[in-house]
């Protein structure tokens, strides 16, 4: 092997080593959001169940202790609670299509998404529009008459509810 070839090979190898050395931490850094834990939170107190009206869904707004980077302030979120006698349904206010917040339209007795016009029934079932599934139920529990839920977000556009 002549000297030129050796030098050329060494230079190429040094370049590859430098590139690998620099890009490894960069790649770990850029893709770090993939390693962050999922969005599920602790139980959040929504207050006394009896205080919620019967027969029509109520938008409950609550605060989630953030996993929003460095923020210390809670972030706001909302969910729908539908209560009829003993029956309680708690589901997300996020449209499973592309993530807009759905509205309750009492005139047509349905939830509608203001973005692409998907519609859902009183208990969150998919009625029409581009949404691939019903409004996602959220885990909830009753304790001493108080309603608690776990805040969760799900992947948009999937036919099954998969936590994001």
């Amino acid at each position, binding site marked *: 092997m002549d000297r030129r070839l050796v030098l050329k090979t060494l230079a190429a190898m040094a370049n590859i080593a430098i590139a690998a050395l620099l890009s490894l931490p960069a790649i770990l850094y850029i893709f770090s959001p993939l390693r962050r834990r999922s969005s599920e939170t602790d139980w959040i107190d929504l207050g006394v169940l009896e205080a919620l009206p019967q027969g029509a869904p109520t938008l409950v707004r609550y605060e989630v202790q953030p996993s929003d980077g460095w923020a210390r302030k809670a972030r706001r979120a909302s969910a729908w609670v539908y209560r009829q006698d003993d029956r309680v349904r708690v589901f997300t206010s996020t449209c499973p299509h592309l993530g807009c917040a759905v509205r309750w339209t009492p005139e047509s007795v349905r939830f509608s998404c203001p*973005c692409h016009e998907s519609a859902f029934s009183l208990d969150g079932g998919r009625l029409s529009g581009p949404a691939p599934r019903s409004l996602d139920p959220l885990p909830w529990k009753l304790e001493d008459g108080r309603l608690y839920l776990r805040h969760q977000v799900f992947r948009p*556009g999937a036919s099954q509810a998969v936590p994001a």
Partner: protein
Amino acid sequence: MTRLTDWLEERTGLPSVLRKILEEPVPGGARWSYVLGSSIVFVLAVQALTGVLLALNYAPTSEGARASLAFIQEQVAAGRLLHGVHHWGAGAMVALVGFHLLQVFLWGAYRNPREATWIVGVFLFLTTLAFAFTGSLLPWDQNAYWAVQVGLSIVGTTPWIGHALQRVLQGSAEIGNLTLTRFYTLHVIILPIIVFTLLGLHVYLFLRRGVTPHWSLSEEEGKHRREPFYPYQLARDVGIMVLMLAVILWLAITFPPMLGAPADPSRAYEARPDWYFLFLFELLKYLEGPLELVGTLLLPAGSVLFLLAIPFLDRSPSRSPLKRLPVVVPMLVGVIGIAGLTGKSLLVGREERRAQRVEEVRRAGVLEEGGALLREQPCLKCHRLGEEGRDRGPDLTHYGGAGRSSEELIAHLKDPKVLHPNTIMPSFAHLPDRDLELLVEFLRLQGVD
């Protein structure tokens, strides 16, 4: 002067480069149809300048973004104007780049030997759209938040890699601080590096082969009937720059961008993307189930691949659009489809959306100012509002007006004894009418969603 020029020539060679550019022959002579390229460079420079100035006072955090932009608009000298110019300049960029692409297409200027110029141009077009999308989040108002929510969800529906891609762009499971810092970094560092690199390459490739004459002239004929760039083409280019600047300034002054209510993930909003993405937004309403992917992935990706492949698909010997139907027809269909969907989206329900937007802004203002006023006044010494206050008087948390009209409530605040003769509530008749109205508006919004 000549000594300075000579010195510069000797040390840098730049004067002769400049001379070469100015004397660059324009095939077929100077024309108005050649001005689009240089006007894009001009508007890009305006965007870079106003962008740097905005960055001086902008904070990319969920707490600071909207507040800092409001600060720019309201308290920094010329802030509203510069924000307006950047906002409308962005729209102008998308429009001009779109027109430039169409013109180059119609002229057949992508053909041998200019394929590389065209391909770099397609990437510049995509970079422009990426600039527009990342920039649209930065005001962090309701529309910015929800439009980007939809945009990122579309990314998330890509098969296999969608979820990971959305996560990396979003920085977290939900849009927040980490999304803002990512979009900001893309918008002000990464995309500028990309755009200036590609633009340099694009202009270099363009200068290497020169402009393509109108399709009625062959390259040979174009070479015979040529004029130098300076002064005839330069004058036209400068004329268009002045016109572009005048239009952008007029738009920025007449229609300054309105900051909406602060981004609030818990409040529904009728999200709309900016006008250049409206066609996709409209299309997604009609595509259900597996067809969804047609709108979110197949059509956009297919269009880009088509654009990149045009120089290799077009094998016609003539540059006349009528003789290049295999590429002209799909392009025409695409343009008509985009125009139709955009038109429909813009025209249907325009008044309602405007009213809704005005209402959202008004409501946010009432909640903010009314809440401050209520806390200034002694109201909470007796009344409860959520976690604050005491329980001596009625709870105001879900008050919502209790079925009374605004006039009745104002009369009640002025003289509480009319409604309840034995009440201990003092009169607030000393407050200006404006404050009384604000308090009543605020109370009416309590418990109403």
